């Protein structure tokens, strides 16, 4: 009480005036220093290309629209700087953006290829992250988690760990996957070889007229971005597409039927993971028809052929999550039964690879003789030229004319020629991404924008390994032979057709394609 009285006494008239004077000074200083008389806004930044007079067009601008529900791609607006690189690649390289009339109908036209993600300098556009799903599956003791790795990931994964472009890390990749706790580590090259047998047989059937209603040229069907492009822009050429599923989906269907049956595993407990260089593979795995294992087992519960797709970049994140030093790992081998792959399967990762692999086997099937040496180094279909072509004399059959196209912009003139009936080819390989899978939308961002130098390094690594293999022809893959002997019977058998082949969707009604001059 006394203290309070004492304090009250201190508030003298002098003190009060001093206090008010100080507050006034502080207020005046704050007003003068901090309170701008400028209008609101304009305190930020935009890239240089947008600082032009309003009547001048900006050459590189904006960004591509992304479907918020896309299974493949997402975008973080806080990272986007509107540099326009995504539009650049989508429009000029892939010929998707801007190739439809406005207004849009009810679809955000996207082939899910992820080239925008590969070109994005800030990684604002990236794959839909499913790393956590894999971690949960690995930690679930009731789940039998199998993984397949695509041909192209083994020549790129190392780049995420500081190794030079094209470094060969197949053995380390297998070792890392095993160390993380995957129950089986398999190779997509196995089904790449299988694809050659199915697709090759289909081609021969088309040439010989056994496959009625299926015209020539036959188009390859391994690249889901290319498939969606064809469904969108060239739906009338869908009959030209091979009915073969991509190696990823063949693998998914087989692991939950063939492998599950042979090893007595409940397919419902299998979690099928794939490591892909591609973001469109996520879309492909989510296509409603890709549940052939479920159909096979007559399961009421939905069994997806492939449950989770990780890109190479996601795999790198997963490996880093477990604190594994990839480069320091000892090399390990793939698990048997679905782990063997030939050099032919391996080169699927490069543009022209499917074609080269196919002709090696086609030659053997048609002539019953080993393929000549030239078919093991088929240079006309190698390299980064947009459209490559070759013709082969096959004794007893005639001339087989083939073409290889990569990058969807390069596909348009070839497809137009096919539409007009002017295409001389029997078989055309289409790959969505420039350079093929080695430069897929899910690969490491080793150079920005992606450079041919990096693509060439990765491709060279694949061809070098193919050359060093003893097994270089798909039809000589012992595990594939065993698969046919014990399960599928023969290529395009009834069961093979059920599990390894698919149908396509006409997406031409989703928009009005722009008339091109």
């Amino acid at each position, binding site marked *: 009480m006394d203290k309070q009285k004492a304090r009250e006494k201190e508030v003298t008239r002098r003190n009060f005036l001093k206090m008010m004077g100080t507050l006034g000074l502080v207020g005046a200083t704050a007003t003068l220093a901090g309170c701008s*008389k400028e209008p609101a806004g304009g305190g*930020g930044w935009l890239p240089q290309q*947008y600082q032009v007079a309003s009547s001048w067009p*900006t050459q590189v601008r904006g*960004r591509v629209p992304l479907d918020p529900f896309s299974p493949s791609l997402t975008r973080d607006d806080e990272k986007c700087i509107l540099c326009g690189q995504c539009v650049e690649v989508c429009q000029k390289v892939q010929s998707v953006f801007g190739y439809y009339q406005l*207004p849009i*109908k009810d679809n955000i036209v996207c082939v899910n290829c992820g080239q925008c993600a590969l070109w994005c300098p800030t990684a604002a556009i990236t794959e839909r992250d499913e790393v956590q799903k894999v971690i949960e599956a690995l930690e679930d003791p009731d789940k039998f988690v199998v993984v397949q790795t695509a041909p192209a990931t083994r020549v790129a994964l190392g780049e995420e760990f500081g190794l030079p472009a094209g470094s060969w890390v197949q053995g380390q990749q297998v070792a890392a996957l095993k160390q993380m706790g995957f129950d089986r580590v398999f190779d997509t090259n196995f089904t790449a070889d299988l694809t050659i047998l199915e697709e090759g047989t289909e081609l021969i059937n088309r040439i010989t007229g056994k496959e009625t209603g299926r015209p020539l040229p036959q188009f390859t069907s391994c690249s889901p971005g290319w498939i969606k492009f064809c469904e969108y822009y060239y739906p009338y050429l869908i009959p030209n597409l091979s009915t073969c599923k991509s190696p990823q989906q063949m693998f998914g269907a087989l692991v939950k039927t063939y492998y599950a049956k042979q090893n007595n595993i409940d397919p419902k407990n299998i979690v099928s993971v794939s490591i892909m260089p591609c973001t469109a593979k996520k879309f492909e795995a989510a296509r409603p028809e890709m549940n052939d294992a479920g159909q096979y087992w007559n399961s009421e519960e939905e069994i997806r052929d492939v449950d989770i797709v990780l890109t190479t970049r996601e795999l790198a994140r997963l490996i880093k999550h477990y604190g594994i030093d990839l480069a320091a790992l000892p090399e390990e081998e793939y698990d048997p039964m679905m782990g063997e792959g030939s050099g032919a399967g391996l080169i699927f990762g490069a543009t022209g690879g499917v074609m080269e692999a196919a002709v090696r086997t086609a030659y053997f099937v048609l002539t019953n003789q080993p393929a000549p040496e030239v078919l093991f180094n088929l240079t006309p279909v190698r390299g980064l030229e947009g459209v490559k072509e070759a013709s082969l004399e096959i004794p007893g059959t005639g001339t087989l004319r083939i073409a290889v196209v990569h990058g969807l912009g390069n596909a348009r003139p070839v497809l137009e020629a096919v539409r007009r009936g002017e295409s001389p080819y029997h078989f055309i390989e289409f790959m969505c991404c420039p350079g093929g899978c080695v430069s897929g939308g899910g690969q490491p961002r080793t150079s920005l924008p992606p450079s041919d130098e990096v693509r060439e390094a990765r491709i060279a690594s694949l061809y070098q390994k193919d050359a060093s293999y003893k097994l270089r022809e798909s039809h000589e893959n012992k595990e594939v032979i065993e698969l046919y002997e014990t399960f599928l019977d023969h290529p395009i058998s009834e069961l093979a057709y059920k599990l390894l082949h698919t149908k396509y969707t006409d997406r031409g009604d989703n928009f009005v394609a722009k008339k091109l001059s």
Partner: protein
Amino acid sequence: MAYNKFDTPGKGVLIDLSKCVGCGSCSLACKMWNDLKFDDKFPDQGPDAKLSDKNWTAVRFHAVEKDGQPVFRFVKNQCLHCQQPACESACFSRAFQRTESGATIYYPHLCVGCRYCMLACPFNVPKFQWDQTFPLVTKCQMCFGRIEKGEAPACVGVCPTNVMTFGDRDELLALARKTIESDDKYVKHIYGEHEAGGTNWLYISDVPFEQLGFRTDVTTRPIPEYSHEFLKYTPPVIVAWGGLLSGMYIYTKRRNKIAKEEKKDMSV
């Protein structure tokens, strides 16, 4: 008689909604240029997009029907920069000022935070910084600094499909009229030509505006005219009121004086 501050209608933007693909470049450019924060609760793109103190522009997604078919449309919202802005007329501290260029801009140092502007705006545009200790009102400034330099507003410049055209309002109106008349797909209405007495941002669309969340019941009479109807009597009311009160004061004072004098006489 309407109060027109400037002789020229100024600059504006014509938005052709049928060209929008929903990439959201415009709303991001707005955030980048104006240094605005991102807010998960109030998205600036998608089906739930709305204007907020951090979203000066927002691109809202609409799934509607056109000719019996489902279609996607995207609507970019922002301040429409009225020819005779209600916010300006409601603001007694002159924090909102329409400029000769057509932009209605906001001066934070003049704002007293009364929020009359928010009540006045027929398009529900100005937003308040509810989460700030010293909150301000916020809205699109039409990138005033940029248009003064001859550049287009940030959102216009970044659009990859040319949804927006920046220019003189008169020319934009002529362009809009020509576009909707030459193509059957368009609704024969230019939103903003007459709404609230005319706005400097104009819209054309191939889907009726009411289906895209536009207020179609907005008066065509400039909002300030309504308040002008009675506010024009303010000076005479003040003078009359002052006169009346002064008179009453003098009268009362005189009465008291007389009463006092009478009392004095009585006591004598």
